[in-house]
């Protein structure tokens, strides 16, 4: 914690990995300036009528993520200090808060459309915005010599609905923006009034490809809110599931990379590994995508340790063989190199997480935060893989290294013993922050429980919601049309996670 926070008049509360400060609205700007050495992980509002603005800062300086700082600021009117000028990562959340709560940064800079479809009137969490979002991305001037290539929302086969507005001068990508409101299911709106276990059902389905991570984050948030700790064996079961999730996602990303580079033999090899990993999931946890593994207060299912020990080496061997063969294929590596470059400064400014950030050299990993199963009793720590080039190849290499680390961790967790026990959740009020390292990066959840133990405000922030904002920057960096699918595959994000 930074001691100078005290000088800004913030009052401190909380213990362990999460520290909460109360910051008055006039001090907010100064506090944000103070904290700008930390990574702004999330920002959201709660309490519809008199909104409270909450900023979640991750303290991951020096590759040791030591925890989170939350600042709480009650907002009086319908404006608050402009934060994205100081902490650029706040921009998308500023837009989202405006859509949901009708409060906006005081400078009145234009805000984008994030969740609200242009042609539907959806319920919001708080006041409705006084006017439509400005859509600063959308209208490039007609006088310019570029045009918008409309792509989507119905795109290729077997991919999610997503609209790309690709502003191009013919070949070069001048600008790129996304609309994901086609998939906005109002999850945060839906979660109000649900008990945490019911909320978990939706959290798993917010972004099914990180069901474990999001479920874990929500469960951990509820546990933090009520002050319980899940049994250690259950925590290890969660961790096994989380690492299995990482493995299959990286295999799927590898298959997608092959598809985007037109290497269908490589795609087949990667898909064989992927399918074996999914079957392993089904055998070990009873679900191919590990739904239902996480339970609030523990783990819903325990892994079949024998099955994992029997099948994982073979499946990972398949993965490794495909990856090695791909790295030997020059035509593949050439397409990855220097494509979709994100510098470390961009990654830091936009608050990117996961393999994208690590591929650019930011060693951020929530598994390092003390208190979880990862460094409780196993003791060997986690090797966080990073690369510096920031291109697609760097992200691919990070994924490969992470897969190897996951296999090692799974073995350790199984040796340490796993189980499906749960601790019962008391019916109390409270707020809590939960996190987990999804295959795409840090997934965050924050819940506020009422006296009945029901959720009065839940915030879900999958890694996709964070990393899509780096996607257009990566596409803009001197790339042409055909690089975009490759970059998309290397980010391996979901529209579902962004739109929620």
């Amino acid at each position, binding site marked *: 914690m930074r001691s100078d926070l005290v000088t800004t008049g913030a009052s401190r509360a909380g213990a362990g990995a999460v520290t909460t400060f109360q910051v008055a609205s006039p001090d907010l700007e100064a506090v944000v300036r103070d904290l700008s050495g930390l990574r702004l992980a999330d920002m959201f509002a709660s309490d519809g009528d008199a909104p409270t603005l909450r900023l979640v800062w991750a303290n991951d300086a020096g590759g040791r993520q030591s925890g989170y700082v939350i600042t709480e600021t009650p907002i009086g009117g319908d404006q608050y200090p402009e934060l994205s000028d100081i902490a650029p990562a706040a921009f998308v959340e500023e837009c989202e808060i405006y859509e949901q709560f009708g409060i906006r940064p005081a400078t009145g800079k234009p805000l984008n459309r994030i969740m609200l479809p242009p042609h539907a009137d959806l319920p919001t969490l708080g006041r409705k915005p006084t006017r439509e979002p400005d859509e600063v991305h959308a209208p490039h001037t007609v006088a310019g010599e570029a045009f918008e290539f409309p792509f989507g929302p119905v795109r290729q086969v077997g*991919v999610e609905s997503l609209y790309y507005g690709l502003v191009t001068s013919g070949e070069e990508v001048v600008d790129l923006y996304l609309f994901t409101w*086609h998939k906005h299911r109002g999850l945060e*709106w*839906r979660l109000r009034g649900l008990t945490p276990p019911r909320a978990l*059902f939706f959290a798993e389905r917010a972004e099914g490809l990180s069901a474990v991570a999001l479920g874990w984050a929500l469960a951990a948030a509820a546990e933090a809110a009520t002050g319980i700790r899940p049994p250690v064996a259950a925590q290890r079961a969660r961790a096994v599931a989380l690492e299995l999730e990482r493995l299959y996602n990286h295999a799927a990303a590898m298959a997608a990379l092959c598809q985007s580079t037109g290497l269908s033999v490589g795609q087949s090899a990667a898909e064989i590994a992927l*399918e074996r990993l999914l079957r392993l999931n089904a055998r070990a946890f009873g679900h191919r*995508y590990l739904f239902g593994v996480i339970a609030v207060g523990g783990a819903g299912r325990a892994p079949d340790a024998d099955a994992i020990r029997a099948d994982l080496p073979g499946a990972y061997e398949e993965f490794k063989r495909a990856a090695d063969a791909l790295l030997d294929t020059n035509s593949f590596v050439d397409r990855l190199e220097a494509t979709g470059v994100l510098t470390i400064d961009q990654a830091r400014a936009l608050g990117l997480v996961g393999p994208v950030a690590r591929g650019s050299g930011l060693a951020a990993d929530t598994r390092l935060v003390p208190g979880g199963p990862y460094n409780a009793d196993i003791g060997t720590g986690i090797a966080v893989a990073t690369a510096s080039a920031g291109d697609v190849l760097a992200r691919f290499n990070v994924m490969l290294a992470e897969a190897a680390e996951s296999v090692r961790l799974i073995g350790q967790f199984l040796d340490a013993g796993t189980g499906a026990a749960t601790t019962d959740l008391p019916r109390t009020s409270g707020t809590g922050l939960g996190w987990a390292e999804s295959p795409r990066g840090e997934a965050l959840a924050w819940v506020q429980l009422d006296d009945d133990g029901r959720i009065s405000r839940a915030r879900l922030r999958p890694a996709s919601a964070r990393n899509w904002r780096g996607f257009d920057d990566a596409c803009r960096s001197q790339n042409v049309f055909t690089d975009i699918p490759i970059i998309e595959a290397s980010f391996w994000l979901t529209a579902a996670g962004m739109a929620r």
Partner: protein
Amino acid sequence: MTPEELRETIARQFGRSLHIRTLDTGSCAVCEQEIRLLAAPHYDLHRLGFFFTPAPRHADLLLVTGPMIRAFEVAARKTYDAMPGPKIVVAVGACALGGVYPDDPFTYGTVDAVLPVDVWIPGCPPSPLALLHGLGVAVGRLTEKVRDLPFTAEDDDERIRGAR
């Protein structure tokens, strides 16, 4: 056209190859992953004469996932309208069948609120095997087993007692 006639036409016309277009109306991306795996070596739906096509103009079958987001209705209708007849709509997954989201301001909750669904494939997500079976049912090459499945297990008194 009655369902029987439709199935007969489809069995006759699509006997050898059938082109599939997918449509995501708000899924969590897992059904999409399973659909992609249909083309993977383990399932290889091409051996059965099914092919994916990105253009609805060439598609005979629409695989719809997700709970049909209201904001997406325009796109869903456009995609359906763009397909030539005869066409089949297959609702895939619990979301599309009403199992996850209710009928509310965000979603219709089920696909058949907007599109005329011919085949329903349950599952969250339906595994590629279930999808293969569903596609077989859709073209009339496989029979509907679920019609005869009672979802009741034989009583096993000892086990019940043991459980008690």
